[in-house]
């Protein structure tokens, strides 16, 4: 279980997060929606240790993560698929997957996970030798998700996996996120595409300029008038 309490983050005096609290229970899909600049990426980056928090706490099963080096957070079972995919364009598809397992030593387990990821995303198997930079946007997102899984995380945090992708591709990725979750991986999903995210989420938070304004079960937020007006307008139909 991931527990975030009163998390505050500043960028040179500018508040990016002003005390947010959220809980990500084991085995669930939790989503955080919010518009540009709300502080969604900052939340994930702080959990991963890329950004220093000003105050607050982030605990994984009771163990404080804030202040740990990035690789220790990963070792604690928390992996991130960063915004904008960020695959290593100069590495092959297979090497990108292996880079996700950089800290692991269990060769057999790594091969097993590669086979699992190939079964989730057969296109990656077909293209395993190709430099990742030559993949399409959707394929790169699949690779980024696969790479994130290669550390065998307990919690997978995804930062806007639908960014810049066609609706059909987004649907494919979301159904695979559900499948990953069924395999026991806890999901923390960040999205601007609130409609899709709320539909698959067990629980959801709405972030507005560094504060959580609304929270509740995904289905309840889909029906919430404030959410409808602010985030679902253009997706309704």
């Amino acid at each position: 279980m991931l527990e975030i309490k009163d998390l505050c983050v500043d960028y040179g005096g500018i508040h990016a997060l002003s005390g947010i609290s959220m809980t990500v229970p084991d085995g669930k899909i939790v989503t955080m929606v919010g518009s540009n600049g709300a502080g969604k990426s900052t939340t994930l980056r702080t959990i991963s240790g890329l950004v220093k928090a000003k105050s607050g706490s982030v605990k994984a099963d009771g163990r404080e993560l804030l202040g740990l080096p990035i690789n220790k957070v990963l070792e604690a079972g928390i992996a991130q698929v960063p915004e904008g995919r960020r695959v290593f364009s100069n590495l092959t598809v297979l090497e990108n997957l292996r880079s996700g397992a950089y800290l692991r030593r269990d060769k057999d387990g790594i091969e097993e996970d590669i086979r699992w990821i190939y079964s989730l995303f057969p296109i990656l198997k077909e293209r395993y030798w190709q430099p990742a930079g030559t993949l399409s946007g959707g394929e790169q997102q699949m690779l980024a998700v696969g790479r994130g899984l290669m550390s065998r995380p307990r919690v997978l945090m995804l930062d806007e996996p639908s960014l810049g992708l066609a609706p059909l591709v987004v649907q494919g990725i979301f159904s695979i996120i559900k499948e990953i979750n069924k395999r026991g991986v806890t999901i923390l999903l960040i999205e601007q595409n609130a409609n899709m995210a709320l539909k698959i989420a067990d629980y959801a938070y709405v972030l507005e300029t560094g504060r959580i304004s609304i929270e509740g079960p995904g289905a309840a937020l889909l029906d919430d008038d404030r959410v409808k007006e602010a985030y679902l307008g253009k997706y309704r139909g």
Partner: protein
Amino acid sequence: MNFIARWFPYILSGVSVGGQYALIAIGYTMVYGILRLINFAHGDIFMAAGIMMIYLSAVMPLGGAVLLVLLLTMFLGFSVDRIAYKPLRSAPRMSVMISAIGVSYLIQNTVAYLTGGLTKQFVEIPWISDTVTILGASTKRVTLITPALTIVLVVALVFLINRTKVGMGMRAVSRDFETSLLMGIRINSVISITFIIGSFLAAVGSILYFTNYTGVTYTSGAMPGLKAFVAAVFGGIGSIPGAVVGAFVIGICETLLKGMGLTAFSDAFTFALLVVILVLKPTGLFGENIKEKV
């Protein structure tokens, strides 16, 4: 036949000089590839290896001295990064560049102080300094060893980078620091390894290079360093094959010019080549247009 007899010795020595430049150029290109930094201190690390060789071989057997020079040079490269560049990882690139220039002068002045600014006689290494005759041309054995050793080391390096886990880490870090961190790659270790490899190759190059010259002084790293840098830019900075090809091209052209009696122009030629390549193809022969890192 006459033609070959006339030019063969120059080509031979050009290939050898090219090998020496290549061993230095790889250090420039690898550090640039990973940090986007031109390590101005690299030529001075090369020179320091030569000086250490002189001092150490005076107090111990040659084999021990060579081994220790290799180790100490690797440590020097490692320390330069840790002390002068690592604290500036997130600073503007210009600051790191200025720090590199500072380190370059620091090494030069330390050596000037230790040697009293004098040129030190380089060690006579038996066997590799012996004269051999090949196809009618007589030369030191080191002339033949240098290109062969260079090729072996380059092949080993390419294998390391393309086929091993740490090599994959290096390629990942060279593309994206932050995502590498998210994968658990310890980027500072990877950067250290890069400096250590570059310095090791420079130390090998240094021992081979100075065997062909009589002495080493505190400025002896400047010219070969600069030539190797031009080779790296010519080949496409960041590319290892590029640096090697560039180094051989420059080494061979230089010695051929000397053979034509144009010794005075051989250095000018190298820098003219730099201007031409920067105008015609700024990314060099094998360079790619790498996006600015975020």
